């Protein structure tokens, strides 16, 4: 029997008037919330004194042990993970924080996944590298609150004062009498107690942590993933399940004209072929529509689809040609654009400079290609909907399904499976909506399975980008002017028909927030209308912006005969807080308050120096080898990477060694940080060497890993060293994404050092042949 720390709604203690809209909803749902701003309501002894943007997220933060923790009579502690697991280890890291504060024995902890319900759990968007950043303190508070309730229950049982007892390793001890009692025996009594107020909680001192910061806990899903027991999107099989694959309009904005299903229906196992509902683009994450083949198994459905004859109206993007568009983009950045940051007088400084160095760069569209293509199962009736899907945004999926089906939110249940990778693609729940619509139509459970071709042909693509930087250098070799023009279709075009310029969010990812000590800086953003669906891809606009900026630094160094690392440090300048907001309006700092998360040039310097030191910058290398360096702040973390590359006489690349320095402030799970940096290296190799989605007549020209390769094991770096800086009590930064942006420029800078060939257009492809 489980004893959740649950109380009737009538006894709910509700705090924090600033979040009444949320709390009203929680009370209505029968839950109990002990909620407060992360620092505002708690004193310095009970919570770290910093604020985050967590409270401003949709549905904010819920801090309630009764929702997140339950304890069985046998002592098993069950902790709810409310974020989606896609390989980051968040299903381990967040419960681990609770367990540490709770003084739970990790061996007796069980983790369960929350359903999509942001009213109950708070914001669940598992993107933006925010999970640990926003939930370190709330998870600690949840664990501490549960521990306090257990201690109080034991004290009452023994008729002693609460401060005479202490929880330790899954039991409460009364030192004076030597009595001890396990959590399982206390759970029922503890559940009857009120949840302590935040400002009364005792958080553990860092020196008492057993799990946090140690890296001694394997991910909870490790065994199931490695033995095939883990349940991903395609593993859900309710009774009477029907299997569907769809053919969708090949051009975004296109629609179905007609189809002939005769041959498809002749395929054994195919049961029905029906039109699938779609919406005109842009329509958020709504399905594209098309034709659905329904069968008794996925294989039959795919074969049936192969046999279809379909006629399309390709619509307004029928002539989208990415090569022609590239020429337009490159021309656009040679002309003035919307000024998005302006400091000093760039025109005058460029005019009076001793030398002007110009760099132009191009980065193509990319597809996410998570190893698990999208898949979702739905069981929808007239009155309720139940969905099983690998989604990064369980709460958003819940809302979108309810609205699309016209059902009340309480009639919709979203079960979140493991995600076989996400990278931002699975923040968009179009595949779950497809399944829901088909299930309602067929009055049966339906699983929609995307093939790899579906995934590559109908993605929400990483944007395509042209970047141009002009740097003016004075006679002393100091960079005195910096004009960076970036043109790229915005992901806002997925919601907004008229979007032509990058949003403040995209501009804030490495363009306007460049932290260089240059007196004259101007950033401009020429127009770039989208002609396909644009989404966010791991690290988003940091990828093109960092590539341009960090390549340009090396180009300047070469032009001046300087060492690239020294040049980079010179341009970062002295340790200081860089006030980006004074020279740009609507600056977006990853949603975080500047006072907690300033742009700290000192931290960028430190990781640059650390990567250089650990990577043995300047060491003697064999012929054909080179070292490259790049550093970048993103998602309020600071990363620098030194890469050693080897290029043979045929232009083949290998990477003997990578050294990455990470300053993400306070960290929880160093083992996962290392794995994220390793994954970022693999993704960085993929996008740098191979990644390119092209369009002809509006259609994506790639379809599978034969023409859109990802890095294979023989391309992986032989050694990846990850060097963490001490947290020093700083607020935690992001980790899931920040390893990616510096990788490609560091690699290409290393290639230049090895060969003298400058890579200005990605992918590298055969440019070295």
């Amino acid at each position: 029997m489980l004893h959740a720390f649950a109380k009737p709604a009538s006894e709910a203690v509700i705090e924090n008037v600033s979040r009444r809209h949320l709390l009203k909803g929680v009370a209505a749902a029968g839950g109990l919330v002990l909620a407060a701003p992360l620092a505002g309501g708690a004193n310095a002894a009970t919570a770290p004194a910093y604020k985050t943007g967590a409270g401003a997220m949709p549905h904010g933060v819920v801090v309630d042990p009764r929702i997140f923790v339950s304890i069985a009579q046998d002592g098993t502690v069950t902790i709810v993970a409310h974020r989606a697991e896609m390989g980051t280890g968040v299903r381990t890291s967040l419960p681990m924080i609770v367990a540490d504060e709770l003084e739970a024995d990790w061996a007796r902890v069980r983790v369960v996944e929350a359903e999509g319900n942001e009213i109950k759990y708070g914001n669940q968007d598992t993107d933006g590298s925010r999970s640990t950043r926003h939930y370190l303190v709330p998870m600690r508070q949840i664990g501490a609150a549960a521990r306090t309730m257990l201690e109080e229950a034991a004290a009452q049982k023994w008729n002693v004062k609460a401060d005479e007892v202490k929880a330790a390793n899954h039991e409460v001890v009364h030192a004076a009498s030597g009595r001890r009692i396990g959590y399982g025996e206390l759970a029922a009594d503890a559940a009857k107690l009120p949840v302590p107020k935040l400002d009364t909680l005792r958080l553990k001192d860092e020196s008492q942590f057993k799990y946090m910061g140690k890296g001694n806990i394997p991910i909870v899903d490790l065994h199931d993933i490695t033995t095939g027991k883990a349940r991903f999107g395609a593993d859900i099989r309710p009774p009477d399940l029907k299997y569907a694959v769809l053919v969708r309009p090949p051009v975004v904005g296109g629609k179905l004209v007609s189809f002939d299903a005769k041959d498809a229906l002749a395929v054994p196992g195919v049961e029905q072929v029906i039109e699938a509902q779609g919406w005109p683009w842009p329509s958020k994450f709504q399905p594209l529509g098309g034709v659905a083949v329904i069968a008794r198994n996925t294989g039959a459905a795919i074969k049936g689809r192969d046999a279809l004859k379909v006629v399309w109206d390709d619509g307004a993007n029928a002539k989208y040609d990415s090569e022609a568009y590239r020429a337009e983009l490159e021309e656009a950045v040679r002309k003035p654009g919307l000024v998005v940051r302006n400091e000093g007088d760039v025109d005058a400084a460029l005019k009076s400079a001793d030398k002007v160095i110009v760099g132009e760069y191009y980065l193509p569209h990319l597809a996410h290609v998570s190893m698990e293509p999208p898949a979702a199962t739905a069981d929808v009736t007239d009155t309720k909907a139940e969905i099983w899907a690998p989604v990064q945004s369980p709460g958003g999926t819940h809302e979108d399904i309810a609205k699309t089906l016209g059902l009340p939110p309480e009639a919709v249940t979203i079960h979140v499976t493991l995600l076989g990778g996400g990278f931002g693609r699975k923040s968009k729940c179009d595949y779950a909506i497809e399944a829901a619509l088909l299930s309602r139509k067929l009055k049966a459970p339906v699983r929609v399975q995307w093939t790899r071709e579906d995934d590559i042909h109908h993605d929400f693509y990483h944007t395509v980008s042209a970047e141009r930087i002009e740097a003016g250098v004075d006679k002393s070799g100091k960079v005195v002017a910096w004009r960076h023009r970036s043109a790229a279709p915005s992901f806002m075009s997925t919601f907004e028909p008229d979007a032509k310029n990058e949003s403040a969010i995209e501009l804030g990812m490495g363009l306007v927030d460049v932290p260089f000590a240059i007196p004259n800086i101007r950033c401009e953003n020429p127009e770039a209308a989208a002609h396909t669906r644009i989404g966010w891809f791991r690290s988003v606009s940091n990828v093109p912006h960092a590539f341009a900026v960090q390549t340009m630094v090396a180009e300047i160094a070469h032009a001046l005969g300087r060492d690239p690392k020294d040049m980079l440090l010179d341009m970062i300048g002295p340790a200081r807080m860089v006030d980006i907001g004074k020279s740009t309006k609507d600056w977006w700092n990853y949603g975080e308050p500047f006072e907690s998360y300033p742009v700290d040039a000192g931290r960028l310097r430190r990781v640059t120096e650390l990567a250089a030191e650990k990577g043995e910058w300047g060491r003697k290398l064999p012929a054909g080898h080179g070292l490259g360096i790049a550093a970048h702040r993103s998602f309020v973390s600071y990363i620098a990477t030194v890469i050693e590359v080897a290029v043979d006489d045929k232009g083949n690349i290998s990477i003997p060694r990578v050294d990455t320095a990470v300053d993400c402030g306070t960290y929880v799970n160093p083992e996962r940080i290392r794995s994220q940096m390793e994954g970022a290296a693999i993704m960085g190799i993929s996008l740098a060497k191979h990644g390119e989605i092209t369009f002809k007549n509006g259609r994506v020209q790639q379809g599978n890993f034969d023409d859109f390769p990802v890095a294979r094991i023989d391309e992986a770096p032989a050694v990846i060293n990850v060097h963490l800086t001490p947290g020093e009590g700083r607020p935690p930064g992001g980790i899931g994404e920040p390893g990616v942006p510096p990788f490609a420029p560091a690699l290409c800078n290393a290639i230049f050092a090895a060969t003298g060939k400058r890579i200005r257009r990605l992918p590298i492809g055969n440019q070295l042949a």
Partner: protein
Amino acid sequence: MRALTKAGLVALSALLSLHAGAALACGFQRSAEASSDMRVAQAGDAARPGRGPQSESSVPTPAPPASTTQTTGATNQPPVVKQMNEEEKQKVEKEGK
């Protein structure tokens, strides 16, 4: 060994192309060529289903060439989707992605 594998695949692709038609044959040869420097293609690669309908066509369209300055997004969404668009725009502007 690699040469043998490649030769075998090319031969197999030629055999299968007799059955699968010219379009499949092109795909097969591309896979075999790619295998020499990227991967060892499997015999079933090109034969497996899932590439999409064999017969797709499009009606003529007056679409203009895509440009950086001319948006092409539709504005005729149903009210519910229009509202979802607006809400998501506000959400992303507020929280980021």
